[in-house]
């Protein structure tokens, strides 16, 4: 089948403004969703669901969140780990303090709490930019982790500092946290949340809010002269971004790992998610997913690759390779293709659109 938009004339602005204006894209996305929601839970084994797909979904959500702030609004943040921790601990306190709260409400409320914290730490962005802002968000990262370590109240005075998700069901006995939850159930829960939130993010970036973020990113002075209030635009970006990252953190603690300590959200985590959006594509929702997939799959691929080729390489060497490859890729994308994998994908589609007649 040709990947072609020829003959698909848009007769209304509504059709032209759609997320996927090209028919083939719509079919592809419908197919992808069908596979993700129906086929995967049936065919995937526990290993795939719990150690590959769940972290991929959680990372994707965090990457979407960071991309809204950094890729769309141009505010560099190194506080992602801290905000994820904030979501995780908020979810823990909420679900243990109010056991009757539905898990969906807990997840979203943790996001809201993180959003408020995000706004607080976003305040410096009104005065400072770029590198200095990154340093200020780094302060958020260290402060939040220190807070969760220091005050045992956050862990309900658990001596080890580890929090464990209490068993909770979305409805009836459809458990998504705790020992009764099946990998497929967790996966479906995470997938649903991530899909809906990603759709909302896509809607935001093609509406007024998203345009005001991008305007601030591209030229804040001109944005202000058009009537955008930098305060509102920047803080709303911090709020929405932190909401997403907070939900991701709650999902990490509750759905993916089940129990977690603040150490899981150290500065490496912030960098890891930043690398995802750099490799996947700054300013692209799709790119956030591609970057998350890439970074979750690469280590698995690397640790299996030697076996596939019948080589025996020590685990140490593999992890060194991992660092080298990441490093090289990040430099490559920053210099050559700041729009990341998402842009490469788009170029491929443009080529395909013309194929087999290149002119």
């Amino acid at each position, binding site marked *: 089948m040709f990947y072609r938009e020829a003959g698909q004339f848009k007769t209304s602005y509504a059709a032209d403004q759609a997320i996927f204006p090209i028919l083939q894209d719509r079919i592809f996305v419908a197919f992808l969703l069908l596979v993700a929601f129906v086929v995967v839970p049936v065919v995937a084994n526990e290993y795939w669901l719990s150690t590959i797909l769940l972290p991929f979904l959680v990372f994707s959500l965090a990457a979407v969140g960071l991309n809204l702030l950094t890729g769309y609004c141009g505010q560099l943040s190194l506080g992602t780990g801290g905000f994820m921790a904030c979501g995780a601990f908020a979810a823990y306190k909420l679900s243990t303090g109010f056991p009757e709260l539905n898990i969906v409400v807990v997840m979203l409320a943790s996001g809201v709490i993180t959003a408020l914290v995000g706004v607080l730490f976003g305040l410096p962005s009104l005065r400072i930019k770029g590198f200095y802002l990154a340093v200020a968000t780094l302060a958020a990262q260290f402060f939040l982790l220190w807070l969760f370590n220091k005050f045992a109240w956050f862990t309900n005075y658990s001596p080890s500092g580890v929090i464990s998700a209490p068993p909770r069901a979305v409805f009836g006995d459809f458990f998504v946290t705790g020992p009764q939850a099946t990998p497929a159930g967790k996966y479906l829960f995470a997938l649903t949340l991530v899909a809906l939130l990603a759709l909302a993010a896509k809607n935001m970036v093609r509406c007024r809010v998203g345009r005001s973020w991008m305007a601030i990113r*591209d030229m804040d002075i001109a944005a202000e002269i*058009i*009537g955008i209030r930098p305060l509102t635009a920047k803080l709303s970006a911090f709020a929405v971004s932190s909401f997403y990252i907070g939900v991701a953190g709650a999902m990490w603690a509750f759905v993916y790992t089940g129990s977690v300590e603040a150490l899981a959200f150290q500065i490496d985590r912030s960098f890891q998610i930043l690398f995802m959006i750099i490799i996947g594509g700054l300013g692209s929702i799709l790119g956030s997913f591609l970057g998350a997939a890439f970074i979750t799959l690469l280590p698995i691929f690397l640790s299996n690759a030697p076996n596939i080729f019948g080589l025996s390489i020590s685990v140490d060497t593999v992890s060194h390779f991992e660092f080298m490859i990441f490093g090289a890729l990040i430099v490559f994308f920053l210099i050559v293709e700041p729009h990341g994998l998402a842009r490469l994908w788009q170029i491929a589609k443009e080529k395909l659109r013309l194929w087999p007649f290149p002119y």
Partner: protein
Amino acid sequence: MHAARQIGGPLLQVENISLSFGGVRALANISFEIREHEVLAIIGPNGAGKSSMLNVINGFYHPQEGRITYKGKTRARMRPHQAAAQGIARTFQNIALFKGMSTLDNIMTGRLLKMRQPFFMQALYLGPAKREELEHRAFCERIIDFLEIQAIRKTPVGRLPYGLQKRVELARALAAEPELLLLDEPMAGMNVEEKEDMCRFVLDVNEHFGTTIALIEHDMGVVMDISDRVVVLDYGRKLADGTPDEVRADQAVIDAYLGVSHEETASAAAE
């Protein structure tokens, strides 16, 4: 809209404005007015303070002295986004487009202030939010047709040639449906054809929408052709203010600004 070109009373009055940057006096005691529905040109040699004047008007620079009255209200210190909310739009001498966005998105940002749907409706892209988006899209398409930039709607503006970027910037300013439009050298760096197009657009905007326009321009031919009145600045001072013919005949202006061409015409007449 047809009686638009009736020049009315003062829309904006600038009184005794002085602005300095450290030791540099960019504007010294400047007063003039911009009248409703007119095209006012601000001219003067490089560094005369023309751009600074526009920056003062839309709240980007804050003068140390003087006051500005817009639509009968004397304003205190204000921020650019407040000026935008009151109907003042502008373009820049060095294009200030959003480089990462398409032409259409750039123009759509010009309509941000007209969009009312709350955040959550946008995130859900439900009924009213979608309808609002499409209405504004339709409006922007009219501007796109008007400025003849249909072919580049989806192109990222960073990839456009200079002349077209200037046009997109005008489109973005027009999208806000301003009452007062400030244009900082809209024709600088353009070839003759592009300049002619731009003049036509400026006059059409003024004619059809009744928009009051204050523009800075170096090309005297253009200035004399399209403006109703001219303000001449030199080293931060106002030299003259009047119709193009009055200004052309003003001795101070001839000496300071048109000096060369005056001598040329004089010597030509002598021969």
